[in-house]
């Protein structure tokens, strides 16, 4: 009978242990999908509202949630989007790191299209980071996935390769690649890449001391970019036109393009771009 209080105490203690609330259930599939869809929706909304920082953060979050539900396609899509937004923010190194989710994970079953997109983006970011060697490697990988340059990104790949050639002082190759890029872009009615290719063609011709022949493609690029209403590209076209006109000996035209470029740059409040443009124009 002496043991009775002890037994009672143990029983109470056991009872206390038994009343522990059950662990919170893990997230249901529906909750995860909803959070994933919400993050993607928020990213798109913030992007529309011009909050690039917020959009980049949400794309990262969407990629993270997609990884938890093993949605590889969404992981890749959101990582690539995050990389693009980081680059718009001028954070090129972050843009490169965002792509690691796709490029540094050979085990995950990303589709060929997503791998191509990530490699192409990496080539673009590497070029922006002034690393043409790495850019060439990734552009080549992307080109291998785009059989016979017949995929939707053919013109973009060729334009990137043309830029690499130009950066490597191979202006003749750059001209040839830009011509092919223009052809591909036109065949797909891709106006943005058509304009990029024409701008590249103008640059390549000027680099070969054929400034007079550079004017026409640059004017065509400007016309397209004005239709697309992309101020960054309009500024680049006007700068190139000013340089080409100056090299061709047409000082009046060069001055006119220069003044237009300055007006666009000021309206863009792009002080850094303005300084870069002026440095470029002052260079002999």
């Amino acid at each position: 009978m002496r043991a009775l209080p002890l037994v009672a105490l143990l029983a109470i203690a056991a009872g206390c242990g038994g009343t522990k609330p059950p662990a919170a259930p893990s997230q249901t599939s529906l909750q995860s999908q909803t959070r994933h869809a919400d993050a993607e929706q928020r990213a798109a909304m913030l992007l529309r509202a011009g909050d690039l920082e917020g959009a980049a953060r949400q794309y990262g979050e969407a990629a993270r949630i997609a990884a938890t539900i093993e949605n590889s396609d969404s992981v890749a899509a959101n990582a690539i989007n995050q990389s693009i937004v980081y680059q718009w923010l001028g954070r090129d190194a972050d843009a490169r790191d965002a792509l690691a989710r796709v490029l540094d994970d050979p085990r995950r079953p990303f589709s060929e299209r997503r791998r191509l997109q990530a490699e192409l983006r990496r080539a673009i970011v590497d070029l922006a980071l002034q690393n043409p060697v790495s850019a060439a490697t990734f552009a080549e990988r992307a080109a291998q996935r785009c059989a016979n340059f017949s995929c939707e990104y053919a013109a973009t790949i060729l334009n990137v390769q043309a830029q690499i050639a130009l950066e490597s002082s191979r202006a003749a190759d750059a001209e040839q690649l830009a011509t092919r890029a223009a052809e591909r872009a036109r065949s797909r009615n891709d106006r943005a890449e058509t304009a990029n290719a024409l701008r590249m063609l103008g640059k390549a011709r000027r680099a070969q001391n054929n400034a007079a022949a550079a004017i026409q493609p640059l004017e065509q690029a400007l016309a397209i970019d004005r239709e697309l209403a992309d101020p960054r590209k309009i500024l680049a076209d006007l700068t190139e036109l000013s340089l080409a006109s100056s090299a061709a000996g047409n000082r009046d035209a060069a001055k006119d393009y220069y003044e237009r470029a300055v007006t666009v740059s000021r309206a863009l409040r792009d002080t850094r771009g303005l300084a870069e443009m002026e440095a470029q124009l002052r260079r002999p």
Partner: protein
Amino acid sequence: MTATFVPPKRFARLVLKVNAFLLIALLLGAAFIGLVAYKQGWFVHQTQIHFITANALGLNKGMPVKLYGFTVGSVSGMELSEEGVDVRLSIMSDYMPRIPKGSLAKHSREAGVVGAAVIDIVPGKPGPALAQGERIDFQPSRSIAEYIDDIRRQAVPAFNELKNVLGQFKGSGEDIAVSLHSLRKEMEALPQTHRDLRNLLSTAERTVAEANTALKSAERAMASIEQAVPELTTKAGSAIESIDSAAQQLRATGAEAQGTIQKAQPVLERGDAVARDAGEVFNAAKRVWPLSDSFNEITDRDLPIDSFDSRSKAPKR
């Protein structure tokens, strides 16, 4: 014997204590009601708009109204009207400038087919905002039957194509591996054909321009030719697109045919190579016709990859 009643000490100033208690209770009650009202948005100025729907199935009072995924109001009431059901929406007035005239209210779900039902506002073209009491157009949600019907409508032509292809294969007695290989080669040649056609068109344009300078008297005729050339280009473009889409359908059909034939015809034992080809096209087909809506969502969410971003920020030395 007169005994006067002496109240106990603890009842001293009883009335005062009771009144203080009641006052505190009243204040707490009012604070609680105020908090609830604040949480319910009673202190936020609301603007009422409404829409008419044929029926109110799936609509409830209190249902959230969303704009770009944000809750901006709720369904404040519903009543029968001559046209159907008049549904009133209370929108926080701060958000009204974002809802211009011509906007649309859609009954949708937060995660596609499943998820909580909401009223989604799709803003119209920029312009003056909707005013108090104005009517907005309404688009009811699609039922499961409509989704299935949509899938059926898209699937039937593909199955018919499959039937035709099977019939042709059976009739010709050709080896399907050879046929699919030829088909693939033809499809690979399509971009080249497309390019050649465009080259031909640009040559035609140049020829027309030369004729224009040589024959001034033919200027009027030239103008009409110049008008006709873009039309011709468009038509040729759309024809090529049709060929492309037909080829895509054939690829999808070929994939389906592969699965069926492997079961039905042991003749096709050499189908492994074909199966690999078909696997690729089947993956594409899965994304195209049965769930085309989902496919669109995937492509829409991708930001454009633009080679312009490759230019370096620092000027090259």
